[in-house]
């Protein structure tokens, strides 16, 4: 009996234990299953959030290169100084840190102290500090930790800074970046997706205080550097354009900026785009123009912010693609293309200019030569830039065909250049009339480029089609995009949009424009040794920046070279010169000539001198120092030069011009024979505003040499600049460069309604 009781007891105990175990563990397993399966994803997210710390590693922005691989914009790792103000124990510590950091960061102690007094764990004190400051801060951190027991209050976090090493060079094309390293203008904006890399991540375990637990768990996803962009812009060509445009702005007091665009006529690649009145991309929010900045400071405080914003927008604006203007007589190239293509004019065509024309009753439009050019053929009319002749041609073409060619040359659409902010044209608009409708006066004005506005990039693209045989090309500024290993990610291929005029018409017009640049109204853009073709333009503006009673003008010149087989086209235009000279031939054409004179040899285009040009070429002075006076004089005479001897010595101790320097043909070499005479100096006289003969006469009176550049020797030229200012003391024999321009006016659009 006892045995049976024991057994039953044991059995019951086992069953009870089993029930408890099954119930307990079963419940646990079910709960575990529920948490894992039903709430698994939610709980693991919470666990990750609680246990892991995710730090973003920002990617380095790609570099911008010019066409030759020169760096125009590059990013470098810098740091931002961050406080954890909540870890300061007392004000003494805050003061110590503020006193130590302020001189390193270039901030005031009060500013740093203000950051230290905040009540948070992350306070940015200063961004984008460089390596030298960072090293000083690290030493400071060590110092305060050892000496003052201050720790975990200062942190240096990696940041990036965008460098533009050449300041305001090509600023309109490059653009700039914002505080988050995002592109805000120019190529930086247009190609932001390529230039911005992919951010990386560091995932680390963190403790209950949110601090990293090293060696516990760390996973790194490296950042991917942004792609780099190679421009079509050539740094040398860009520099030449900016240099001469800036000089002209100063000389003729241009008050509303200036533009120069050079394009490869066959591919559409933009070799240079100078937009003066720009900004420094390193400090894009600073007002670059000192006069504007001073004027803003004088305004009431309430008005300053609006004025600053307006000034910033103006300086960021790319005038070459965003601003429209009346093209003026330069547009006669397009009208001529239409006329030749439609055979409206031919060799037998002629027109007699009487000084004005009335396209509609009550409207009289004058010619630049108010007394009239007389009878002229088409070439003469183009060289004279005769408005009545072109109004007649325009009437012969007709409004419908005119607008058809206007569209074909791309003026009614954006060019599609890969820069932001491109504007469209502004053409005549009449209520209840179809697009492109022009009345008689509109057509007359349009024929010589007045009363409708286009962008400079549209104009040079259209004129490039005349240069390259009639093909309208797509302009672009970026040739390729490279990844961080140098592999080409994207390449821009030259694109021809359509053929606008036939190659024969283009060739005929090129020849006419070459004549215009040699003996016609564009001869101030002449470059010795190069066959330049081009047209000047002087446009009357509607807005009066100088005052209500003063007319404002735009001076422009557009041409291409070499005329037989053009490689490049250049458009220069100056908005509102105020020095008194405003004609395209006086302001823009000389700049065109100066730019081409430097750029064409750089592009390895060999000069082809005519006999006349060869006879006027400068020659190189030999060395005569140490020679006897007689020997030196003989050598100089054999070189085709004239000698002047100063002093009473037997041997030459000094010569001006020096050995190797250029001397104009028939120029003078001054030989100094003793130290007393070697110190002799003369004051440079005024040599501007004179004819060539007068310049030579006055220069020889002062024993000075002159080097002539600018207009060809066809006469009627006046000196406009001298490279050594009047009154400067120089040695006798010094060569002074004088540039000449044709003083006759050839473009003037006066409209009387």
């Amino acid at each position, binding site marked *: 009996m006892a*045995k049976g009781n024991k057994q039953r007891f044991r059995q019951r105990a086992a069953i009870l234990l089993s029930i408890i175990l099954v119930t307990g563990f079963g419940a646990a397993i079910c709960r575990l299953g529920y948490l894992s399966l039903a709430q698994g994803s939610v709980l693991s997210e919470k666990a990750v959030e609680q246990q892991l710390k995710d730090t973003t590693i920002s990617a380095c922005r790609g570099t911008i290169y010019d066409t030759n691989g020169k*760096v125009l914009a*590059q*990013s*470098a*790792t*810098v740091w931002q100084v961050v406080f954890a103000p909540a870890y300061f124990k007392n004000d003494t510590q805050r003061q110590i840190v503020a006193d130590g950091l302020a001189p390193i960061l270039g901030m005031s102690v009060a500013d740093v102290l203000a950051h230290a007094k905040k009540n948070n764990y992350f306070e940015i004190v200063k961004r984008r500090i*460089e*390596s030298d400051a960072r090293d000083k801060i690290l030493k400071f951190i060590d110092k305060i930790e050892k000496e003052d027991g201050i720790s975990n209050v200062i942190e240096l976090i990696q940041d990036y800074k965008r*460098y533009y*090493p*050449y*300041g305001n*060079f090509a600023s309109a094309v490059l653009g700039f970046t914002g505080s988050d390293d995002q592109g805000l203008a120019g190529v930086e904006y247009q190609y932001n997706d390529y230039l911005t890399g992919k951010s990386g991540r560091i995932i680390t375990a963190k403790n209950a205080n949110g601090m990293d637990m090293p060696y516990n768990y760390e996973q790194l996803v490296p950042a991917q550097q942004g792609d780099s962009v190679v421009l079509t812009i050539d*740094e*040398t060509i860009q*520099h030449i354009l*900016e*240099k001469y445009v800036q000089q002209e702005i100063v000389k003729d007091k241009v008050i509303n900026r200036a533009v120069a665009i050079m394009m490869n006529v066959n591919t559409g690649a933009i070799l240079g785009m100078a937009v003066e009145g720009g900004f420094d991309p390193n400090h894009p929010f600073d007002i670059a123009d000192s006069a504007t900045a001073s004027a803003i400071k004088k305004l009431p405080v309430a008005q300053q912010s609006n004025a600053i914003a307006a000034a910033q927008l103006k300086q960021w604006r790319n005038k070459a693609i965003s601003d429209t203007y009346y093209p003026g007589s330069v547009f006669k190239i397009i009208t001529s293309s239409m006329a030749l293509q439609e055979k409206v004019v031919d060799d037998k065509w002629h027109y007699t200019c009487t000084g004005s024309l009335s396209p509609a009753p009550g409207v009289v439009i004058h010619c630049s030569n108010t007394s009239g050019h007389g009878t002229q053929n088409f070439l003469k009319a183009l060289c004279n830039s005769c408005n009545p002749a072109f109004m007649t041609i325009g009437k012969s073409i007709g409004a419908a065909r005119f607008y058809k060619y206007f569209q074909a040359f791309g003026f009614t659409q954006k060019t599609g250049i890969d820069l932001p902010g491109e504007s469209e044209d502004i053409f005549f608009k009449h209520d209840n009339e179809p697009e492109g409708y022009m009345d008689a006066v509109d057509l007359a004005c349009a024929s010589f480029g007045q009363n409708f506005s286009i962008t400079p990039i549209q104009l040079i693209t259209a004129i490039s089609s005349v240069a390259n045989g009639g093909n309208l090309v797509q302009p672009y500024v970026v040739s390729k995009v490279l990844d961080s290993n140098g592999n080409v990610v994207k390449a821009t291929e030259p694109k021809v949009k359509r053929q606008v005029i036939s190659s024969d018409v283009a060739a005929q017009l090129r020849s006419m424009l070459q004549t215009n640049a040699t003996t016609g109204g564009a001869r101030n853009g002449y470059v*010795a*040794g190069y066959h330049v073709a081009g047209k000047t333009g002087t446009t009357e503006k509607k807005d009066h920046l100088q005052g209500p009673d003063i007319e404002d003008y735009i001076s422009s010149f557009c041409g291409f070279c070499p005329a037989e087989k053009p490689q490049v086209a250049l458009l220069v235009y100056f908005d509102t010169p105020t020095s008194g000279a405003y004609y395209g031939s006086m302001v823009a054409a000389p700049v065109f000539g100066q730019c081409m004179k*430097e750029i064409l*040899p750089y592009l*390895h285009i*060999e*000069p082809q001198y005519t006999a006349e040009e060869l006879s006027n*070429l*400068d*020659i*190189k002075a030999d060395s005569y120092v140490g020679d006897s006076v007689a020997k030196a004089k003989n050598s100089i005479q054999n070189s085709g030069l004239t000698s002047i001897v100063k002093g009473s010595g037997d041997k030459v101790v000094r010569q001006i011009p020096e050995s190797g*320097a*250029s001397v104009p043909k028939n120029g003078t070499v001054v030989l100094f024979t003793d130290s007393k005479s070697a110190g002799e100096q003369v004051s440079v006289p005024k040599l501007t505003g004179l004819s060539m003969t007068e310049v030579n006469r006055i220069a020889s009176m002062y024993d000075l040499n002159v080097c002539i550049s600018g207009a060809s020797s066809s006469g009627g030229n006046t000196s406009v600049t001298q490279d050594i200012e009047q009154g400067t003391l120089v040695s006798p024999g010094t060569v002074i460069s004088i540039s000449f321009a044709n003083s006759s006016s050839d473009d003037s659009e006066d409209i009387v309604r």
Partner: protein
Amino acid sequence: MASTERMYDLSLFESSAVPASPKKNPSARPNKKGEIIKLPKEKLEKIQRRHHNPVKLFVGFFCAIIITAVVGSIVQGQAQLTEINAKIDSAQKVLSDDQSLYTQTKMKLESKYSTSVIEKYASDKLGMSQAQNYQKEFISLSHGDKAEVVDKKPDGFFETLKKAIDSFWS
């Protein structure tokens, strides 16, 4: 049932009439098959003494050394890896800092030597001027020997088949 007998001392409940079972002489008892035999002490000790196989001993020792060496090398490798990784990290950090310093310095240098700065210095300080065209001589260079590499298109299916057949017969 036997266990029940052991649990309770039934002898306390039984009379003394039941004679006690005679004591047996363990040495005189005949050995039956399967019964435990008590052996003399010396023999017992001899049997109980472990017999070690020298070959097995050597192999075991050798294996133990190898395993120890392998585990030790793994541990050492891991330790070395950790150290090298730490060194790589710090070297990369130094490289990154140096690259940054290089870029910053290069940008500052480029800004000081831009084309406009050089031109200004040359003209203002050194009295130099632009080279004129007459000072330049244009030389036409021959393009030199050229080799043209033909970019071969991949063979089509039939060409591949034909080549395979040709190579089979060749």
